[in-house]
């Protein structure tokens, strides 16, 4: 019997092909959007991790409380000891030192007098050690507009826009005026080795990247740094792993009575991205719901039209002695079959598009003015496990719901009534 009905389904294109196409299209979009959003947000999260928050981040408790003010007077001290302890405790995590600093950057003329001056916001990272991964991590090589990467502690990179504003060229000296860790005045000369474009407006206005040892020297921060960023060995941020690291670290190292004791926060809590995590989930939920509703309405209508076309068939089946419930159920089986076929096709197509986007990516750098910047300028999809099944939800739901809605009319009507409609 079921085989008989499926045979009819296959032969009746308007009953099978059209709904399958609708389901396939909806599922394709659902899967693709899911991968796209996961990819784009993942990329932004990863960017934030690399730039400001790490997967986990260690600061002193006092620094953490005031971290918006770049309180380097509250920095971590005896950092090298701390790092070697951490390497024992977490051998798979890479810890790097970072100092965020602010001050004035002064461009002198040939007599040493101030030619131009501007407020600077800088980040100090390890640019010089042989095995440092920071240059790659921050995508510095690709962000260079002019010049080269610093090779000495007194060499810096500044944003290209800032360099133009200060009228400084490669190889010229700039003076950083800031305060030391102990509150004293710090005046230190640096050589501009290159200029870069960050792709983030505030940073392009006044950004600077310096070597960590040069800044430690300038700010009297020997064996000290504002933040230790930890990078876990994983392609995509996994909050459960990070949480576990955070908990064990804080258990061992944090002393609630000592505001200079280190404390760890993980990406999800620290980052400007934190809200996005929940956002991703609800966003996917919203998309799936929208597709279920939209596709259901479309399929409901095709179901209604199909149902009208099938009054003859239904009338005959009733007359021959098939039970109404049986007819209704068989229509739902048909719908499920269509839903499964459409979902599988849609998932395959959606994954195909996503795979392409994952491997090739859309280069927004070309669309935007320049591709030389630190922001991820290639938007990629990211195929995660849910992508393989998420399409089933709208795929199966919509067609089943659509069929149930359109079939209810048939089910509720009296046999005689259905039959009369058949006669006309």
């Amino acid at each position, binding site marked *: 019997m079921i085989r008989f009905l499926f045979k*009819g389904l296959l032969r009746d294109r308007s009953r099978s092909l059209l709904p399958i196409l609708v389901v396939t299209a909806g599922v394709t979009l659902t899967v693709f959007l899911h991968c796209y959003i996961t990819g784009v947000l993942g990329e932004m999260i990863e960017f934030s991790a690399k730039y400001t928050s790490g997967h986990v981040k260690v600061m002193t408790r006092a620094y953490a409380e005031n971290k918006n003010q770049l309180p380097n007077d509250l920095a971590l001290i005896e950092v090298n000891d701390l790092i070697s302890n951490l390497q024992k405790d977490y051998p798979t995590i890479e810890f790097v030192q970072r100092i965020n600093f602010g001050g004035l950057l002064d461009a002198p003329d040939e007599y040493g007098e101030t030619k131009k001056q501007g407020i600077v916001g800088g980040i100090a990272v390890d640019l010089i050690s042989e095995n440092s991964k920071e240059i790659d991590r921050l995508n510095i090589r690709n962000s260079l507009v002019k010049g080269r990467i610093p090779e000495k502690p007194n060499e810096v990179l500044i944003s290209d826009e800032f360099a133009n504003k200060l009228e400084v060229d490669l190889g010229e000296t700039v003076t950083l005026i800031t305060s030391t860790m102990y509150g004293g005045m710090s005046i230190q000369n640096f050589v501009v080795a290159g200029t870069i474009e960050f792709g983030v407006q505030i940073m392009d206005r006044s950004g600077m990247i310096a070597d960590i040892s040069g800044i430690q020297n300038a700010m009297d921060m020997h064996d000290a740094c504002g933040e230790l960023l930890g990078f876990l060995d994983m392609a995509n941020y996994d909050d459960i792993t990070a949480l576990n690291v955070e908990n064990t670290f804080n258990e061992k190292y944090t002393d609630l009575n000592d505001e200079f004791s280190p404390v760890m926060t993980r990406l999800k809590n620290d980052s400007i991205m934190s809200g996005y995590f929940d956002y991703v989930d609800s966003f996917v939920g919203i998309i799936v719901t929208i597709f279920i509703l939209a596709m259901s309405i479309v399929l409901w209508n095709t179901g209604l039209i199909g149902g009208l076309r099938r009054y003859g068939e239904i009338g*005959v089946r009733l007359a021959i*002695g098939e*039970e109404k419930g049986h007819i209704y159920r068989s229509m739902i089986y048909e719908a499920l079959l269509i839903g499964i076929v459409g979902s599988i096709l849609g998932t395959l197509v959606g994954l195909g598009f996503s795979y392409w986007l994952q491997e090739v990516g859309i280069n927004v750098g070309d669309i935007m003015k320049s591709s030389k910047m630190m922001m991820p300028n290639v938007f990629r999809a990211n195929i995660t496990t849910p992508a393989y099944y998420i399409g089933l939800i709208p795929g199966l739901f919509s067609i089943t719901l659509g069929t149930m809605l359109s079939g209810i009319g048939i089910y509720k009507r009296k046999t*005689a009534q259905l039959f009369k409609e058949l006669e006309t």
Partner: protein
Amino acid sequence: MEQSSIITIKELIKRFPVGKGEFTALNGINLAFNTGEFAGIVGPSGSGKTTLLNIIGSLDTATEGKAVVMGQSTGDLTTKGAAKLRRKHLGFIFQTYNLLPVYTVYENVEFPLLLLQMSDSERRKAINDALEWVGLTDKIKSRPAQLSGGECQRVAIARAMVKKPEIVLADEPTANLDAANSHNILKMMLKLNEELKTTFIFATHDDKVIKYLKRKISLEDGKVVKDEIIKIKGD
């Protein structure tokens, strides 16, 4: 007499709600049919023929009175019970054939048997027999759209007859057919009536059908006005 009746209709009234009021389509019908009859309900359009046939076929229910078919009072049946009665004992033939367009001739005839859960071999035999009765063994793979009206109605007859039901209800079966095809299918049904003792009840106002009837029940405004046994005439 009444005990041997395959169908008994008693004081049957059918009213349809029309606007605020009611319309009485059948008004006090009393009829009995015996096994093997070849009877017709005859009357002008709107006289209530289809309504009566639908009530006998348990597709509709009476407002008052009762219709007992194969010993079962159709008014008391659940929808499932009514479906079972139709499935096992009744065959329908319609004016518009109502074949399933996506299925072949063979499959259209097969359909009623699928609901009866027969073995494959039994089913195959029954279908082939039925197609032989109506002379369509050479068209088993055709789709309804490829057949003429007469051929379609023959498929419909095969579909109604394939399970060898006790009763066949035929509502205006010749209305869409020309004279030659009308005679053809009536002869066919008459033959089946004689060979298988199937009870045939027609609703018709077509003289070509009336000619073949062995009993003619005249209906007017929902009332039986004449009920006559007809001596064999043939053509």
